[in-house]
């Protein structure tokens, strides 16, 4: 028999869901009160703010409308801060609950695709590229299009969010055609 609540046990999905819903609403209300209207809670913009750093080595980028949009956004400082605070939140949560386990590549990946790191690194780089490109084309990632967009019942976000899963499911099936412990 297994104990349900050990010290390391995860939060229930309901707990996490309630906290994130309160956070999502509070952020939206705060942003509108501070009149950053064009700027709902989303993470894509944080990555956009990192992209603006490239205008220093490549001055030509400074005139780019996308880079300018991220640089001049009234909430640029908020989304830049969030890059660090989200990572800090993950770090503190892992440390406090004693499941801080640094790893180079995921254990499950190694089990199915071998311990070689380069294959995973190339996949991650390509995956990241598609993630960033897709998020800006769809104007939002999982946070902007699902957590916010679905909650606003916006048609654009419903299409975007559903599309995330179509290709996501196909790629997962290609990477892991057989699962369930057959291989070990």
């Amino acid at each position: 028999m297994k104990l349900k609540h050990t010290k390391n046990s995860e939060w229930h999905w309901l707990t996490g869901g309630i906290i994130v819903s309160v956070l999502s609403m509070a952020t939206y209300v705060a942003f509108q009160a501070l009149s950053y209207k064009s700027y709902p809670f989303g993470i894509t913009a944080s990555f956009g703010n990192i992209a603006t750093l490239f205008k220093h080595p490549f001055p030509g980028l400074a005139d780019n409308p996308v880079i300018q949009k991220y640089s001049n956004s009234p909430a640029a400082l908020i989304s830049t801060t969030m890059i660090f605070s989200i990572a800090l939140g993950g770090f503190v949560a892992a440390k406090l609950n004693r499941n801080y386990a640094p790893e180079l590549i995921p254990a499950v990946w190694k089990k199915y695709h071998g311990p070689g790191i380069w294959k995973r690194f190339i996949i991650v780089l390509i995956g990241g590229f598609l993630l960033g490109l897709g998020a800006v084309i769809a104007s939002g990632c999982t946070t902007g299009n699902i957590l916010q967009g679905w909650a606003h019942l916006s048609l654009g976000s419903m299409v975007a969010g559903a599309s995330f899963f179509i290709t996501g499911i196909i790629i997962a099936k290609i990477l892991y055609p057989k699962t369930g412990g057959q291989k070990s």
Partner: protein
Amino acid sequence: MILKIIIGSIVGFVFGYTLQRTGITKYPRVMGLLLLKDFKILKFMLTAVTLSMIGFYTLDSLGVIELNPKPLDWGKLVGGLIFGAGMGLLGYCPGTMLSRIGEGKKDAWLGLLGTVLGILFFALNVNFFKTHLTSKSMSGDISAALGISQWIIVPIAAIVFIGIIYLVNKKVDDFKQNF
């Protein structure tokens, strides 16, 4: 300026903490969802969506906030499909990627580099993407599009979301044990 840093710090910290603490950042769990074997993330997500949907529409009708539905255009479909492929390859999305960096998962750093390069690629070809994908759009307001009052749509959506949670709730929550 200080206010913005404080807001960014609190929102990001709570978000990153909750994602890690609820187990949403785990690679086997994201892949488990995409393999349709582990639905914890879906249940977590739909709980947050359902509650905040009710909250947003209530606050909107009270005049506290203004809803801002994202318009519908081809970019939502094409971008969504590209994003999904990236999420499948990575095993995480942008928010969980940052939380994973904090957790010490080193490959997420490379994912971050890739994401930034993807955004730069978009920036450099913005005219192409705008012309072909986002130039023609329609309002994302569902009750305007369908001509049905939000007082009917919101309860229906809530029932659908809770129904999905109920249907997948019977499946395992921790697929990683046999993954």
